[in-house]
């Protein structure tokens, strides 16, 4: 009876290939990071020094600024994406007439898939000047005593620009998840709420309350996307080793650091390893956040039965 399943034989190699690939990827990042940990220990993650040198003994790399930049810009992105994605979901499910609804959904899906380099070129040429002129300058001239706005917006390339661009880019991801969760609430709840004589705002608040976990996972996944984004960010963030809370100051993210430095890292003794350590950090943070988002979403889908 124990016949070998030929279907398994056929598909198993592909599955094993994917597993091995992923495991190998993790292995490569850990293995390649080891030298820098041996060289400077945890300093790689905890200090903000970027000292490349022809003389290996003088090399020292600390990527705290890049880690901070990745997290900071992603947080800005999520803060921007949440209200937009929520409005969008409410509009699509509650207000939009059928024709517009489909167009709006397709638009959002196109935005989710649009090549990031196009966001990048638009960000660098359109968004950054716009933000500098209409947001940063006025805020700086009036509110510069607040630490958030204290950095002079010289070029416009900054955490804020990167965060806003990322926010625009990840809104469709958050939207897709929130929209679906919102749509999964049966119409009868809405009818019940309206029957109580509630206004649109009040009804929506009740229904939106039902999908709070989905909103959280949508934001986690959007955060995961934002933190991994490379080219668009590297074109607008300014690529400066800076560690500041000020929104208008230029900075670095891990991914833009890798994109900028990896090409010539082989010249130096320790830089390659330092960048791999940065990649490892990105690997771990990104995977952890995404897994949390996915688990949260899966648990919500399993637990909630309308």
């Amino acid at each position, binding site marked *: 009876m124990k016949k070998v399943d030929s*279907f398994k034989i056929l598909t198993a190699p592909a599955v094993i290939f*994917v*597993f091995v690939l992923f495991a190998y990827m993790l292995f490569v990042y850990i293995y390649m990071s080891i030298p820098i940990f041996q060289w400077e220990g945890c300093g790689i993650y905890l200090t903000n020094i970027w000292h490349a040198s022809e003389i290996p003994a003088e090399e020292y790399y600390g990527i705290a600024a890049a880690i901070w930049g990745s997290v900071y810009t992603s947080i800005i992105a999520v803060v921007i994406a949440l209200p937009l994605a929520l409005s969008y979901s409410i*509009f699509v499910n509650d207000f939009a007439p059928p024709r517009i609804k489909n167009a709006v959904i397709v638009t959002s899906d196109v*935005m989710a*898939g649009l090549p*990031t*380099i196009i966001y990048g070129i*638009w960000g660098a040429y359109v968004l950054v000047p716009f933000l500098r002129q209409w947001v940063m300058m006025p805020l700086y001239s009036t509110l510069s005593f607040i630490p958030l706005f204290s950095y002079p917006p010289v070029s416009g390339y900054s955490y804020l620009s990167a965060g806003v661009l990322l926010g625009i880019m990840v809104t469709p991801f958050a939207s897709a998840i929130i929209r679906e969760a919102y749509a999964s609430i049966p119409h009868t709840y809405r009818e019940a709420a309206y029957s109580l004589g509630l206004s649109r705002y009040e009804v929506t608040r009740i229904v939106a309350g039902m999908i709070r976990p989905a909103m959280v996972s949508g934001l986690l996944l959007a955060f995961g996307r934002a933190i991994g984004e490379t080219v668009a960010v590297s074109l607008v963030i300014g690529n400066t080793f800076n560690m500041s809370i000020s929104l208008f100051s230029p900075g670095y993210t891990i991914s833009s650091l890798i994109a900028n430095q990896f090409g010539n890292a082989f010249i130096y003794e320790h830089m390659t390893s330092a960048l*791999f350590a940065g990649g490892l950090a990105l690997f771990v943070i990104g995977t952890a956040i995404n897994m949390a988002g996915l688990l949260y979403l899966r648990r919500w889908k399993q637990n909630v039965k309308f």
Partner: protein
Amino acid sequence: MLSFRQIKDKIFVGLVLAGTFAALFPLFHIICTVVIMGLPAILSRGLVFFTGTLSQGGIGPALYGTFMLAFLSSLIGLPVAFLVGLFVYEYPESKLGGFVKSLLQIMLEFPTILVGVFVMSIMVIPMGTYSALAGAFALAIIMIPYVAVYTAEAMHHIPTTYREASFSLGLSRVKSVFHVLVPMAKRGIMTGVLIAIAKVAGETAPLLFTAGGLYETYPQGVTSPVGAIPLLIYTLIQSPSPADHATAWGAALVLLLIFIGVFVPIRMSLKEVKM
């Protein structure tokens, strides 16, 4: 006289409309900007823009490279992704099946730059050169989870009753899946494949350290460097020359048209896929 409640309701509706507008408006602005900036660049150079080398003011090698990379990465990625998708569909309840599914979802969200760096260290460094093959391999890794998830999803949409019917005819698992069920889900799978190709054709980060870039001659073979439109744009924006910027906008328009030309018709047809 409006009550406080009614005013609040009006404000709420206004905010929702404004938020939706803010979420979608950038796309239209991007499209307009890219057309306004890119069209003159293309028109002023004519056909040369599509066939010429960079010094001739064209993106020919990059265009060619993008198609080459899309083709090669499909060649590597699609069979693997297709089989993995079928595995996930066939063994959804097994531990391994669930594990693979989670892995695919993680890979779907995985930072693409990390894939590029990984492929560089396992292919470019040993081979001693950037190559189309390395670029295609990096893109294939990004493509696999898309196609696998779409495949599993498309298969999943086939009602169980057809599955039972095909097994009831005394067909083996291989025959049931490949000869009966896969053809039923053909459309859904093709959709996933096309979306994945459109997606990887627009990728930049994984190509940064793998494909190398090649803009003055057409690529020679799969083991030599190759260019790609997104990569070209990335390089050109960082150049100080205004002529390069014009070329970048033109290239962006081409990329946008390719993407929208593939993606939108597929996405529009999606809602018709019904059993």
